[in-house]
């Protein structure tokens, strides 16, 4: 057969496969829609419309905002003052007629006076705004909020300025200096930093826009309320006098969309007062809007897959000349298409674009993949319900918790929803950030489908084994020899990565003294399970002989597989995760995020560690479950001790 013939044959085969996939997809779509009667479909449609309407309206109008800051500061300002636009834009401020008596009686918290022109001679050379707060803490807080609002307004106005040089005449070169070189006396109080110190501080704070900006930052937002001097806007907010100047607001500056204001409190200056309360709400709302429809989709999808198994109807497809993968692809395609379509509609409704869709689609795919595997394991609809709820809770937590920290820390980029937030804020998202956020979802999706397809066969589909045993069967289905053990270990890495990132995100709120040791143990346990669970599955199915040499060989293969795959976690560097202490603790033991020379020294360490600990687990796995668990604990202890040693030495 010539090369052309072979190519022709391949193309023909591929064409046939695609036709069959499309046919199964069409059939699946018909099946899933016909399983609901018209009344049910109408109710679902109404529910979706109501949820979408309420959600998007809440986002757009901000009426559902639980923020306690809404309109709490009353600001006396003249109708013709340009600062009216600033106040309108800020959720916590509301305009009132300027009246000094009202200020005295506490009816307003802040009075915006006129603008004092610069006098000749020494002193301020720019116009100064006269602002008078009411006596007391509320007056001070109102002044702070007003400053922040002005700065945010100006930042947005500058961001909209087509002439970038005019908008940002000052270019700040940021040079990141490793903490170790700063010495013990390095200042940590951001409020006292200026110049280079502020730059270093920004590296620590890593607000997401700075860390990937390399050395040149023309974005005025790098200046935050901590007194950094990198503000291109001539910020005078460090003064304590009650008459301050600021760049006059642009009358028609826009100040961001209504949605932007509702979601993110109308400001992007990065001050804690603005970031903390509105961001969880915005993220929660996005999580709600994007993830709730996915629950409908996975319920339908999971039911369809489980139905094929419980009624044994899937047997007829298996005996048809269709590859298992094609059957699964055909059955999944309609639900994936629906998920993408719904995501696109919601993204459009909240003002997002292609990036938002590209960020949320991998989440949807992971939802589907996890549901598919769960439906392949479940023995009844009751079990399937448990599985889908577990998936929903886990994935929702995973995408929601990190996104709380949007613009605060690179931890936020663990969640793809952060990319949506960034797009809505008009921030650029680097390819590295996108890969970091969505990579684990894409790879997890692939591995979950791979495992599920492995048990999409007569012998496993229709058996009534408990879920844990089915899980072991799914792992065993992908084992063939020693090399497959290493490959499977490597394929588990996305899950390890996800578990570790989730641990980082969850432990982030705890004190470092508590979170780091806890994290080290969690990471060790997760990695040891990932390296040994399939070895246990292989022994349980008698795929491998239970001798000590075999166990050690399999352990070594698994250790090497993990060691190689672990290097891909270097993607975390793209978003600056190793700059955080928790990030260091999580990644340093793998040689990520430390100096190249040190990495070389540490190269052998992880390899030996993973090989030894996987060998320990494998020795227990060759006997029975109890001894496997004992050996797993031992391996975790060794691993955690190693991690602690590395972090202590190099942290």
């Amino acid at each position, binding site marked *: 057969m010539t090369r052309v013939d072979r190519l022709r044959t391949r193309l023909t085969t591929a064409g046939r496969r695609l036709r069959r996939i499309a046919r199964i997809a069409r059939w699946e779509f018909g*099946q899933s829609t016909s399983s609901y009667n018209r009344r049910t479909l109408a109710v679902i449609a109404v529910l979706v419309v109501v949820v979408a309407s309420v959600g998007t309206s809440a986002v757009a109008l901000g009426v559902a905002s639980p923020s306690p800051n809404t309109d709490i500061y009353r600001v006396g300002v003249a109708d013709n003052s340009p600062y009216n636009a600033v106040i309108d834009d800020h959720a916590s401020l509301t305009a009132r007629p300027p009246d000094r008596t009202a200020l005295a009686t506490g009816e307003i918290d802040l009075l915006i006076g006129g603008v004092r022109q610069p006098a000749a001679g020494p002193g301020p050379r720019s116009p100064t705004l006269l602002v008078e707060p009411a006596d007391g803490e509320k007056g001070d807080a109102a002044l702070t909020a007003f400053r922040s609002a002005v700065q945010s307004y100006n930042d947005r106005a500058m961001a909209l300025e087509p002439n970038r040089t005019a908008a940002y005449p000052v270019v700040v070169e940021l040079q990141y200096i490793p903490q170790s070189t700063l010495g013990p006396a390095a200042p940590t109080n951001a409020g006292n930093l200026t110049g280079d110190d502020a730059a270093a501080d920004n590296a620590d704070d890593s607000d997401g826009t700075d860390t990937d900006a390399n050395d040149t930052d023309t974005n005025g937002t790098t200046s935050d309320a901590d007194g950094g001097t990198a503000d291109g806007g001539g910020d005078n907010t460090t003064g304590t006098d009650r008459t301050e100047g600021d760049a006059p607001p642009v009358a028609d500056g826009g100040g961001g969309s209504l949605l932007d204001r509702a979601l993110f409190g109308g400001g992007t200056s990065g001050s804690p007062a603005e970031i903390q309360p509105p961001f969880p709400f915005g993220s929660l709302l996005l999580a709600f809007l994007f993830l709730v429809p996915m629950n409908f989709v996975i319920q339908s999808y999971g039911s369809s897959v489980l139905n094929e198994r419980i*009624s044994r109807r899937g047997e007829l497809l298996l005996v048809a*000349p269709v590859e298992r993968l094609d059957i699964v692809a055909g059955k999944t395609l309609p639900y994936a298409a629906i998920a993408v379509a719904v995501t696109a509609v919601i993204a459009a409704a909240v003002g997002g674009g292609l990036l938002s869709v590209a960020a949320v689609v991998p989440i949807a795919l992971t939802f589907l993949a996890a549901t598919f595997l769960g439906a392949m394991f479940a023995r009844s609809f009751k079990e399937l319900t448990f599985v889908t709820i577990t998936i929903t809770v886990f994935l929702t937590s995973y995408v929601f918790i990190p996104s709380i920290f949007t613009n605060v820390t690179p931890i936020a980029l663990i969640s793809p929803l952060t990319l949506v937030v960034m797009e809505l804020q008009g921030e650029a998202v680097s390819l590295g950030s996108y890969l970091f956020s969505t990579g684990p979802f894409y790879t997890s999706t692939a591995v979950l489908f791979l495992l599920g397809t492995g048990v999409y066969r007569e012998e496993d589909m229709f058996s009534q084994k408990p879920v844990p045993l089915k899980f072991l069967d799914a792992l065993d289905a992908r084992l063939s020899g020693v090399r497959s053990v290493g490959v499977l270990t490597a394929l588990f890495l996305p899950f390890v990565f996800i578990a570790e990132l989730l641990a980082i995100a969850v432990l982030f709120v705890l004190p470092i003294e508590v979170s780091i040791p806890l994290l080290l143990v969690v990471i060790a346990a997760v990695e040891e399970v990932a390296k040994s669970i399939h070895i246990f599955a292989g022994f349980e199915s008698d795929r491998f002989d239970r001798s000590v040499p075999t166990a050690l060989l399999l352990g070594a293969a698994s250790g090497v597989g993990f060691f190689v795959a672990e290097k891909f976690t270097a993607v975390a560097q793209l978003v600056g995760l190793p700059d955080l202490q928790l990030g260091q603790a999580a990644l340093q033991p793998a040689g990520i995020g430390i100096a190249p020379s040190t990495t070389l020294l540490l190269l052998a360490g992880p390899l030996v560690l993973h090989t030894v600990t996987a060998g320990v687990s494998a020795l227990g796995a060759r006997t029975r479950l109890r001894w496997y668990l004992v050996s797993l604990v031992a391996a975790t202890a060794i691993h955690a001790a190693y991690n602690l040693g590395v972090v202590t030495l190099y942290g």
Partner: protein
Amino acid sequence: MIEVSGLRKTYGDFAAVVGSEFEIDRGEIFGVVGPNGAGKTTTLKMLAGLIEPTSGTATVAGYDAGDPEMRHQLGFLPEESPLYEDMTARSYLRFFADLYDVPREVASERIESTLDRLDLEYRDRRLGDVSKGMKRKVAIARSLVNDPDVLIYDEPASGLDPLTTNSVLEFTEELREDDKTVIFSAHNLYHVESVCDRVVIMNEGRIIARGSVADIREQYGETTYHVYSDTALDATDPTADGRHRAVVETMAKVEAIQAAATDAGGSVTDIRTDEPSLESIFLELTGQQMPSPRTATDTEPTGEPTTEHEVEDAP
């Protein structure tokens, strides 16, 4: 058309099928019988490529049973064959025709012709709304939608009323005329006896007997002769109609009774042959009460010990 050699399937310590060996010719209807758990369905599913054998080989229509290309040559009817109840018979068959890459015009013609042969009404009614017999006929039609050379029918008449059962069995016999090779499994041995050219009897995963129904009857059945005499003899017992009857197993004994009757001044008035049914043989074989076969050879290919007697095909 089908060659099975040393086919074995184990699940952990449990052996579902142990070293099955048989060959089936084109146009033959081949029965696989045995009690529940004998390994019939596992054997059929290994032939259909649904279950991977632990060891041994199975070749169907020239393809390895695990080869996806083989499925183009195969029509499989599982014991439980639930349909997609929201589809009509036509749309259901059309769907499978598409999966088998049957051209649209050919599929339409074939579907209508098969449904005609099966006398299937309500072709555009939801399958959820038709009778069990109709559903089974649709399932049979589905097995033919790709015009396969080999058909594997696992309990095709299970749970059907007598009329539909006869219809299904007659249709199965007609397939022989179409030069189809059919493997037929059934609990009801009358069905097997009436349809199959050859059978294997399985028990506990092993083939314990094989051959044509006549061969098996000859090998395992004890044909008895009921000899009626008008004279009382030592070997006879009186019957209700006033005659005297002896039940013997060999023609030599029949001849001896004839001689004795003549000597006693009487004669033998009637000799009737009572042949065993396949069912009675099956019950004896699987009930561990093994009749003494005339020829017994261990055909266990793996050399494993077996408590059953296994025989070569009768000449």
